[in-house]
Structure formats: structure tokens, C-alpha cells
């Protein structure tokens, strides 16, 4: 059954093109690419990603409030590890936040792209209470499908592949 379901021509079908404008940084999260024009790198050079706190929400949905960085009913208290001041400018340390939440990430320094896995705390409701996890993904017609939109219906969520 040689070459059964083989698509070697699709391995690298694309022409080289820039990931983002020169000098930008990209964050990958939940299948989205968020491009940031202004970031800092911390004192340990390439090991930290410092962002403007206004950018936090469009990255992972968390918002800074007096009680902390909050998402739904979860608030993470802000410490001076998360809020960093450099030369008078205040940053939010996204990598320190990820470390605190045990959220894995991978960084490619050459292209300046940080890729983040899901935040484990966002999944506690599934792991502990058996509630379906939130997700947001476009269907083939371009409609955004969210788990919460399916409330009131029974759903079979089935993955497949031509593999």
C-alpha cells in the first residue's frame, strides 16, 4: 500500500513571505497570530516577553483590573514579577505570567515568534467537572464557531482526517 494517503507536495507548498513587519513580535495563541509592534525583552535578553498591558486582552482574554489580571471569574494578583518597570516604562511580563500559570510556550528568536499553549487554569472546568472547553474556530463558510454557541443543543464533536 505504498504512498497510501501521501501528499508530499503539500509539505511545503508556500512561497517564503514575511511573518510580520520588521521589528515586530508575534504571539501565537489558540490558532491566532497576534502581532505586537512594541515589546520589551527583559534583563535576561531573549528569555522574557514584555508587552504593553493593553495588548494582554487581545492575546489571551485577560484584562488588568485593580484585583489583578482577570479572565471570567479568575483573577491573578499582580506582583512586581508581572508588572515590570524599565527606564520609566511599565510593561506586563507575559512569560512570567505564563510561568506562574504553568502555561507552556516555545520561542523562535530568529523570527521573533512566541507560541503559547493553552492556559491550564482555563481548562480546570473540563478536567475537574467534565464541562466542555471553550474554543473559537471558523467553519468552512467563515462563521466563527464557539462552544458556548452550542448551548441548548446536543453536539457530537468528532475529529477526522484523510490520513
Amino acid at each position, binding site marked *: *500500500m*505504498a*504512498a*497510501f*494517503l*501521501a*501528499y*508530499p507536495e*503539500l*509539505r*511545503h507548498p*508556500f*512561497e*517564503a*513571505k514575511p511573518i510580520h513587519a520588521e521589528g515586530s513580535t*508575534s504571539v*501565537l495563541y489558540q*490558532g491566532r*497570530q497576534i502581532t505586537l509592534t512594541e515589546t520589551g525583552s527583559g534583563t535576561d535578553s531573549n528569555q522574557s516577553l514584555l508587552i504593553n498591558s493593553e495588548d494582554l486582552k487581545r492575546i489571551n482574554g485577560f484584562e488588568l483590573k485593580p484585583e489583578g489580571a482577570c479572565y471570567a471569574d479568575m483573577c491573578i494578583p499582580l506582583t512586581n514579577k508581572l508588572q515590570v518597570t524599565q527606564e520609566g516604562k511599565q510593561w506586563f511580563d507575559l512569560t512570567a505570567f505564563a510561568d506562574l500559570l*504553568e502555561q*507552556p*510556550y*516555545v520561542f*523562535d528568536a530568529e*523570527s521573533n*515568534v512566541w*507560541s503559547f*499553549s*493553552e492556559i491550564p487554569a482555563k*481548562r480546570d472546568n*473540563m*478536567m475537574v*467537572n*467534565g*464541562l*466542555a*472547553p*471553550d*474554543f473559537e*474556530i*471558523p*467553519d*468552512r*463558510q467563515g462563521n466563527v*464557531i464557539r*462552544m458556548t454557541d*452550542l*448551548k*441548548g*443543543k*446536543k*453536539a*457530537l*464533536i*468528532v*475529529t*477526522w*482526517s*484523510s*490520513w
Partner: protein
Amino acid sequence: MPVWQQVYEEINDPDFVILCVAEDTGGEAVAGPIFDAANATYIQIVDTNHIISSAFNFVNVPSAAWVDEEGRIVRIDEGTYAKVHELRDETRSITFGNDVYTPALRDWVEKGSNSEYVQSIETVTGNIRALSFEQQKADAAFRLANLFRDHGLTEKAEHYWNLTQTLNPESINFFRQNLTLSEEGSAGETFMTRRGEYESQKKDYYRPLDMDS
């Protein structure tokens, strides 16, 4: 996915939906025509980044979750075939699937929480795979690889696809998506060797279907 379309039409309940999620790395070019040929009317998603699969901690296809009206998972992570399938070419044939899953699904849609196929919260949470930090990190590496592929950066894509498999060697999804993009394909010698390891070590290739057949 003509078989799921048939099931969807047979069940024909306005309060029942199917989300059919294709994980093909070939994306729309590969999965789109298959959906179209099935005249699919359920929700069709092409998910090259395996967003849905990682949301539910699936490691193989086909896998599924049943989610009720309140958003509770009532079954999860089973080898999800709608019928018995047979694939053949000149030299061999492979049979897989079962004929109990679809009747069970229909029973649940009709009876809801009174269906004998609805599992307890304890059973459901016990059936959700626990992934290590490294395994979760594989998702980040995989999406980075896909970004590089989309931008024509071949060597970087290869590097991070390899890292993905190093971080999560248990994922058959990551293993096979990569094989599909090779000359030997997804069911060549490399796959058969891996599959043989599962059999010789008596490991489950899918979580066994917990239904009487």
C-alpha cells in the same frame, strides 16, 4: 465524511448538531473536496492547527466528545467510527470501525440523560487524557511549525515538527500528519511499524469503545 452526513440526516433533530473537524495539514485543499463530496450540511471545520483536538486532549483520529445541552461532556475520547469500514488495494485490505456507535448516539439524542450511554462525571473526567507539561508544550511547537510552513520557511517548519513529536511522542495525530506529507504516506512502513509496536505492547491504539457489541 459521507457516513456522518448519513447519520446526521437519519437523526434529523433540530437540537442535535455535528461538528466535523478535519485535522488535515493539507487543509482545505485536501479536506474541502471530501466534505463537498459528502454534501455535508453539518458544521464543517478545517483545523490544521488541531485546536479542537487539543481542547479535548485527543491524540488520535477519529475521536469524539458528546456534549449535552448544558455544555457537559457525557462521553469522550473513543475511537469514533460510524460504521465498519473496509479499505483495500491490490495487496491487502484493512477493516476497522464498528456498528454499535451510531445506534448509541441515536439513543442519546432521543433519550438525553436517560440514555444508558451517558456516562457519569467521574467516568468522563477519568477518560479525559492527562497531558504532561511537555505534551502540552507540543501544541505550541506544532503551531509554530505550521506558521513557518505557511510562510515558506521549510527548515524551521521541519525543526518544530520534529520538536513537536519529541515533546509528545504519544500523539498519533502529530505522527501521522507528518507522515502524510512524506512520500510513503500515512499508512506506509513507518506507520505499520508503529502500529505493530502498539499491538506487541498491547497498548490501545484508540481508547476502547465502552459499549456492548
